[in-house]
């Protein structure tokens, strides 16, 4: 059975979903607010026979409703199928996960690491970055370990914009360079929670004593 899972709502752009199972397993799709018949058919075909979870259905409804007033008015006048979102592109997100893209990204990342970081990266695919606020470990997406100078341990969630179109090694390069250059900005935008807790991350800025 093929199912569709909502990965992320992209404000102003649509919904990022992943196909699980079937011949399109692993494919990432962006559903955007469309309104053209051809795209509507694409989405109908995509959803046909798929298991769609409640979270995605709710998000699809929100997307079809559309936040701008002009879109809502147009939707009310239009035929029902014209309110369906459309499939935009899968290509960039899929390519970003390919071995060749990840190899290119890994080369650049490794060229930026010092000896200690490089050894740690090669050993366990993670490395630490010392900043004036403490130590941040890069390597686990959406759950970056941070130990502040006062000993407090937090889990941080911070990513580059549109990070799903980047190989994961590029995400570490992005975070490494920006963290080294402007740690204050890093901690300003990062979401956080106590390290080891399973609750949702709270919005930044990260409290630093």
């Amino acid at each position, binding site marked *: 059975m093929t199912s569709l899972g909502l990965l992320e709502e992209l404000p102003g752009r649509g919904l990022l979903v992943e196909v699980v199972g079937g011949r399109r397993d692993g494919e990432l799709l962006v559903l955007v607010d469309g309104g053209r018949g051809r795209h509507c058919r694409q989405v109908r075909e995509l959803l046909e026979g798929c298991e769609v979870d409640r979270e995605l259905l709710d998000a699809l409804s929100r997307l079809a409703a559309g936040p701008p007033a002009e879109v809502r008015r147009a939707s009310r006048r239009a035929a029902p199928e014209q309110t369906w979102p459309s499939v935009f592109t899968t290509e960039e997100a899929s390519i970003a996960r390919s071995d060749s893209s990840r190899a290119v990204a890994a080369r650049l990342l490794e060229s930026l690491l010092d000896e200690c970081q490089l050894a740690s990266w090669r050993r366990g695919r993670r490395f630490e970055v010392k900043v004036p606020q403490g130590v941040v470990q890069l390597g686990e997406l959406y759950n970056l370990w941070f130990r502040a100078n006062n000993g407090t341990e937090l889990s941080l969630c911070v990513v580059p914009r549109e990070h799903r179109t980047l190989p994961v090694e590029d995400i570490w390069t992005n975070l490494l360079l920006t963290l080294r*250059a402007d740690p204050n900005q890093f901690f300003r935008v990062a979401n956080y929670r106590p390290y080891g807790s399973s609750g949702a991350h709270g919005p930044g800025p990260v409290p630093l004593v």
Partner: protein
Amino acid sequence: MGVMRVLDHTGDTAVMFDARDESTLDAARELFDQLAAEGKLAFARGLGEREGVRIQEFDPHAEEIIWVRPLQGG
């Protein structure tokens, strides 16, 4: 010869420029301005250096410029 690397879905896209070749510099400057306008961040480093330095303007003598994206809470 310098190179601008723009992080993207392929790993990165490299754009070469040569301080002695005005046509490559024009193209590189144009790309630099475009990426900066998109809110991306540029870091320059010399060959073999592990640290990148944030730059705000195109440096025709930079050996490598790496473009990354702004951060957001995940």
